[in-house]
């Protein structure tokens, strides 16, 4: 059982914050999972608080059998990512967890500047399916055992997902690896 992130963060990942940040937080999440929904504002506040000291990466881990809309939600986020709108879509999806049917997803796509017809076509054709699956399997091999699962500088974070504990852990990791 390896609690280490495989593969490490790379060019295929969606990242926000500074690429040179001393601490990298990776979340494996599912846009339809209520626990991920609850974690979203926590992570948002932490990103704001740590600013340039944090690089945040999101990878898909849709539990598609349990959450019927999770797979397409992940794919629409990838579609948005193709047009530089991954993070706008990420926010929209977590803010609308109660409406993730295909019609809504296409509407959100248009809302972040994508061509609605193209987005609908990409969902229907499964254009981004393999990319989502690839991220899911990297999570399985990294020891992701539910959503959300976080990795801090490559190590799985097993503590409670609350702002105080997560922030304190990130602060200490930032201290430990900050450049001289």
């Amino acid at each position, binding site marked *: *059982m*390896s609690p280490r992130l495989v593969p490490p963060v790379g060019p295929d990942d969606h990242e926000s914050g500074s690429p040179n940040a001393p601490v990298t937080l990776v979340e494996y999440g*599912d846009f339809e*999972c*209520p*626990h991920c929904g609850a974690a979203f504002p926590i992570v948002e506040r932490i990103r704001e608080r740590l600013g340039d000291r944090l690089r945040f990466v999101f990878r898909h881990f849709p*539990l*598609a*059998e*349990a*959450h019927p809309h999770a797979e397409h939600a992940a794919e629409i986020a990838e579609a948005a990512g193709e047009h530089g709108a991954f993070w706008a879509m990420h926010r929209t999806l977590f803010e609308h967890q109660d409406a993730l049917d295909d019609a809504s997803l296409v509407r959100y796509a248009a809302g972040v500047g994508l061509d609605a017809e193209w987005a609908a076509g990409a969902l229907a054709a499964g254009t981004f399916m393999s990319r989502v699956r690839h991220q*899911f*399997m990297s999570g*399985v*091999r*990294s*020891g*992701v*055992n*539910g*959503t959300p699962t976080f990795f801090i500088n490559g190590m799985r974070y*097993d*503590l*409670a997902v609350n702002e105080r504990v997560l922030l*304190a*852990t990130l602060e*200490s990791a930032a*201290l*430990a690896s900050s450049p*001289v």
Partner: protein
Amino acid sequence: MYEPGRLNGEVFAEQLLLRLFAVHQKRLIRLMIARTPLNATADSSPSAPLAPGTVAPDFSLASAPDATVRLSSLRGRPVILVFYPNDWSPVCGDELSLFNEVLDEFRRHDAELLGISVDSVWCHKAYQEARHLGFSLLADFEPKGGVARAYGAYRDAAGTSERALFVIDRDGVIRWSYLSPVNVNPGADGILTALEALPAPTVAPR
């Protein structure tokens, strides 16, 4: 260790802080484990799952109200046994849901996944339908936990099986086993690694 541009005190404080967090994390995990009934059995007789190299004890258990599965009838294919405490775990992304999402990977190894708990066939049926589980759940119901006991994966105090995993090879020999703290979902990585380590089937053309 001296680092230019930094005070030794600063480095020391940082090390101390890190230490504190490491201890804190461990203590929290221990606390979480201690709060579960696992602790009650840990004192008397901790379970020891059957070790790799052991011939997997054969069994025949109901997989549905009108069907049974016999382990030995699956010879020739790898088998994954997943012992878990009970149906209806309240978390999403629980152990069985996760394995359900990884079924295709298990099938790539031609492996059969069997879930086993002390719940009855009717309970399993409802659970399986509600969670859309694409594999069999076996009822270790009468005598209660008999198979779990044979595999060293029964918790007397709780009256349920442990959270234990076994990978059995094509010849019916256990090749990997893992006992997880009962409240920790072990994930699928260990199973996949064990399946990858199995020798290829002998029928493969040279």
